[in-house]
């Protein structure tokens, strides 16, 4: 049964990276948002460096939410979801596998790209390191929470932006503690450990709640 779990992760990654998968659209969207910010706020390097971490986090949040709408809808449309239900793997683990695969294909590239985009915003080495670290810890939480929204809209024909609107409010704690971990070091001088531990706790909690709630949403939408 673990074979099916890992097979499903692998298939999700390959579909996402393959033709029409949309893994790179998120990365390009991330880059576009980050690249547009300096034009908006002007060539004030100090200001950019100060709001940079927050901008990177917001851009990563939006890029993550954008790719979520097809997470289960494609599988429902082509009948794969029926076969997942009959596979013998609990639906909770199906959601977990899909979320992990989706993170590997769309979340991890954002984490890897963050240092490059940090340079665009004129961040120093410490801030770049912290942004990358907090994104690594925090983006799984965004996807686990997002998986609930993606599962909820599976029964609807056109989910689209609805997922982003549904999920966005619930991702705010992740954003707050992600950014405050960085600002604790770079500006406010507060202890860095508490916000970082809360960020980790959010990821761990959503890794449990996301699959359970997502599976419940998929079951409710099966009729």
């Amino acid at each position, binding site marked *: 049964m673990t074979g099916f779990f890992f097979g499903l992760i692998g298939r999700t990654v390959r579909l996402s990276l393959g033709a029409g998968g949309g893994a790179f659209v998120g990365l390009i969207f991330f880059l576009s948002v980050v690249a547009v910010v300096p034009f908006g706020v002007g060539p004030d390097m100090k200001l950019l460096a100060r709001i940079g971490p927050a901008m990177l986090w917001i851009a990563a949040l939006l890029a993550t939410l954008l790719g979520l709408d097809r997470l289960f809808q494609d599988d429902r449309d082509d009948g794969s979801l029926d*076969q997942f239900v009959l596979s013998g793997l609990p639906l909770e683990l199906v959601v977990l596998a899909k979320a992990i695969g989706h993170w590997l294909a769309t979340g991890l590239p954002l984490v890897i790209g963050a240092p490059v985009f940090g340079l665009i915003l004129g961040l120093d080495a410490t801030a770049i390191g912290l942004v990358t670290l907090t994104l690594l810890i925090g983006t799984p939480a965004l996807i686990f929470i997002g998986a609930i929204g993606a599962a909820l809209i599976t029964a609807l024909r056109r989910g689209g932006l609805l997922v982003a609107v549904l999920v966005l409010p619930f991702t705010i704690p992740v954003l707050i503690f992600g950014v405050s971990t960085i600002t604790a070091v770079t500006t406010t001088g507060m202890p860095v450990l508490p916000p970082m531990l809360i960020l980790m706790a959010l990821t761990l909690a959503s890794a449990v709640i996301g699959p359970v709630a997502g599976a419940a949403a998929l079951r409710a939408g099966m009729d």
Partner: protein
Amino acid sequence: MNHASSQLSATEIAVTRGGRSIFSQLSFSLTAGELLAVTGANGAGKSTLLRAVAGLLPLAAGSLRFQGGSEVGGPIGESLHYFGHLDGLKSSLTVRDNLALWARIAGRSGLSGIEALEAVELDHLDDMPAGYLSAGQRRRASLARLLVVRRPIWLLDEPTSALDARAEATFGTLLADHLKSGGLALAATHRPLPVAATASLTLGAA
């Protein structure tokens, strides 16, 4: 295979969708080696019945039981293959890769991926992305899924649609083998099946 004592029985099952009763008070029983043909007009509830038996739709009333011979317990969903209108193939993956995932589901392992594709005469296309297959080829690729993992119950929804005469004969052989080895099958169909049904159930007659 030892499914000699396997039995699938439905007792007065009913399914309601969107507040409308599709069918009710439906009972049937199938034992090893039997094929039940489910017939009825469009919209009579043939697909609904198969999905309800698979556990993909909730039962409004009644109960379903499956005694799987030597295989004990487990949810009924793990004892059956559902072969419906949707083939579950991903267009961007090759036929072989599509099948590889379904070889890992719960159940006794059957043929290897390439053997299953040989059985449905698709082995020459195994590294072709599924998006390039014709409707009948997609159907056969989906049929290969039933061969890589052995499960005693086959639920077949219009199994011969889009198949040409040759593929239909191949399907008939596979189905006959399945029944002979102690499997059982429910097939919803409008057309005569390549294997003679041992019983039939007409929906919408009541």
